[in-house]
């Protein structure tokens, strides 16, 4: 038999039983759609989380006071206390490394802010002008902290979007005076809303020069130092450089922890890829179920069309022709199911993107390939048995059973 004739014959057979064909195609489609859509959502979450981390800044190394022997990412690191302080001079010394582009020291505390006759508890962040560049933040009004001597405690502040809304009703804030603890500061800028970034919400912050924060909280120590390296591939050597500098400054003892943004990022990336794959894997079970359904329905089709198979054999069809006809029919059903499912899955992902725009739910290529491959594979695999059974029919019995 010619390939085109086999294809036409199988297609006619499939279309000859529209309800059965529709059900099979639907079953296969649901399986493929589930894999595609769930993988899309999972990958969307991965992208979302990775994006959140990336918004902290790229090529970033975070220095924390204190040290643990175990390296890697632990949430506890963000709240450790330290025996030896990390000072502003330490942070300034880091600029000596040629691999370092920018350094932003962070000093954090909470205080009361008063303005316009209103009072509010806020987190106060002391830092320098580099902070905004490193964190890729943008301003809604005015300007950011001046890049001046770190030791200068200028009486200026930049407020977050929420603080701006609560204290000034979104009105003009630049030039106004706020009271922070016992200091009177002039507002020079308002941050654009940015949302949650890792462990602090910049919308809720009042940002002041680092020296000012240290005066308010009466401390010399820093909470963190953010270091931006000159390139992605330089992060590792920069880490070693920074460690060497700190060791030299702290009497030969390495008592700071350096976390590369990339390490954290890739950890989360790996976790979420694994998560997406397992969710897609669970969805793929429905493809196996669909495959078994294909087998059942094809077995029914074989017994329904016993007379036809007997006739074909009497007319001179070889066994392999019969196998081919039935396998082609199975393949056609699986193929259309897979394509329909792919369309449905893409549509579902599109809906997710439409109603949750912050979730970039695009089905990853591996999921699409795996879903389509599995649909065709299981369809064909489970089609072999019915096709063999059809070919093995005794033509005399087949013809007699009319």
């Amino acid at each position: 038999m010619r390939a085109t004739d086999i294809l036409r014959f199988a297609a006619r057979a499939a279309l000859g039983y529209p309800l059965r064909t529709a059900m099979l195609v639907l079953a296969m489609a649901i399986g493929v759609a589930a894999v595609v859509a769930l993988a899309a959502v999972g990958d969307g979450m991965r992208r979302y989380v990775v994006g959140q981390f990336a918004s902290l800044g790229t090529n970033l190394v975070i220095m924390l006071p204190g040290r643990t022997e175990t390296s890697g990412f632990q949430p506890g690191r963000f709240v450790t206390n330290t025996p030896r302080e990390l000072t502003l001079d330490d942070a300034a010394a880091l600029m000596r490394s040629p691999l370092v582009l920018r350094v932003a020291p962070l000093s954090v505390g909470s205080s009361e802010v008063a303005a316009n006759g209103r009072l509010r508890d806020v987190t106060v962040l002391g830092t320098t002008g580099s902070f905004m560049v490193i964190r890729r933040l943008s301003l809604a009004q005015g300007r950011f902290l001046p890049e001046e001597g770190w030791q200068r405690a200028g009486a200026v502040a930049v407020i977050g979007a929420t603080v701006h809304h609560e204290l000034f009703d979104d009105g003009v804030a630049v030039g106004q005076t706020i009271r922070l603890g016992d200091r009177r500061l002039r507002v020079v800028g308002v941050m654009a809303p940015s949302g949650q970034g890792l462990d602090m919400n910049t919308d809720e912050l009042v940002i002041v020069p680092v020296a000012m924060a240290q005066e308010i909280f009466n401390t010399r120590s820093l909470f963190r130092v953010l270091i931006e390296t000159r390139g992605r591939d330089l992060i590792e050597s920069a880490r070693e450089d920074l460690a060497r500098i700190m060791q030299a400054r702290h009497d030969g003892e390495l008592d700071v922890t350096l976390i590369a943004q990339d390490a954290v990022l890739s950890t989360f990336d790996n976790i979420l890829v694994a998560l997406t794959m397992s969710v897609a894997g669970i969805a793929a079970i429905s493809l196996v179920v669909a495959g078994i359904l294909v087998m059942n329905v094809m077995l029914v089709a074989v017994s329904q069309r016993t007379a036809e198979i007997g006739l074909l054999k009497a007319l001179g069809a070889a066994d392999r022709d019969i196998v081919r006809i039935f396998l082609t029919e199975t393949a056609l059903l699986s193929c259309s199911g897979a394509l329909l499912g792919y369309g449905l899955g893409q549509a579902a992902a599109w809906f997710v993107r439409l109603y949750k725009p912050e979730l970039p739910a695009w089905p990853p290529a591996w999921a699409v390939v795996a879903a389509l491959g599995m649909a065709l594979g299981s369809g064909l695999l489970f089609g072999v048995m019915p096709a063999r059974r059809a070919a093995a029919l005794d033509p005399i019995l087949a013809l007699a059973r009319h």
Partner: protein
Amino acid sequence: MAQIELEGITRTFSLGEARVLALSAIDVTIEKGEYIAIMGPSGSGKSTLLHLLGMLDRPDAGYYRLEGRNVTTLSADELAAVRCQRIGFVFQSFHLVPRLTAGENIALPLVLAGTPPDVRARRVRKALDKVGLASRAGHRPDELSGGQRQRVAIARAIIMKPAMLLADEPTGNLDRHTGQEVTELLEALNAAGTTLIIVTHDPEMGLRARRRLMMRDGILNDDMGKGA
């Protein structure tokens, strides 16, 4: 050389514990162009003989030579090829594929043989003309009368220009008048040179054949009109 030579053909079936001898040492020689009726009561083995002649079944013992070639030793696929090229079947219940049109049903043997579509179309048209159904090519079986369906089946049986036509009660599902027409069509094909072998238990139809093989209990009881 005879077209068909059967020598000591034996076929037994197991029915549970019992073994039924369906054919017992049948010797028959059939020349090209003969018109034969295989007759006998139910269970006499006439259908089994027809299946063996059509190579749908294999004998347990004996030889079957078709046009001088021993076909008892051929593989299943080789048998299928011989069936396709040399044997035309006509069944009592027509056996048309319901979703295919008359023309497509007739073309089935050509499709199975891998004939190119343009050749197919030409030969199907000719076959339809031969059975007088040129205007019904695009109709599906359920749009045709019983007589028309059997004529489609006959057109399908002769499309490969086979050596013989094997007909199993070809008029069994037809009324008298239509049955008569179908018989005449088969006889016309026989007159044009195709060997015609009909299984029937209609004595009237049997009498029309030039040679009658009378079967009883798996034995060829009588061979009337041989050489006539």
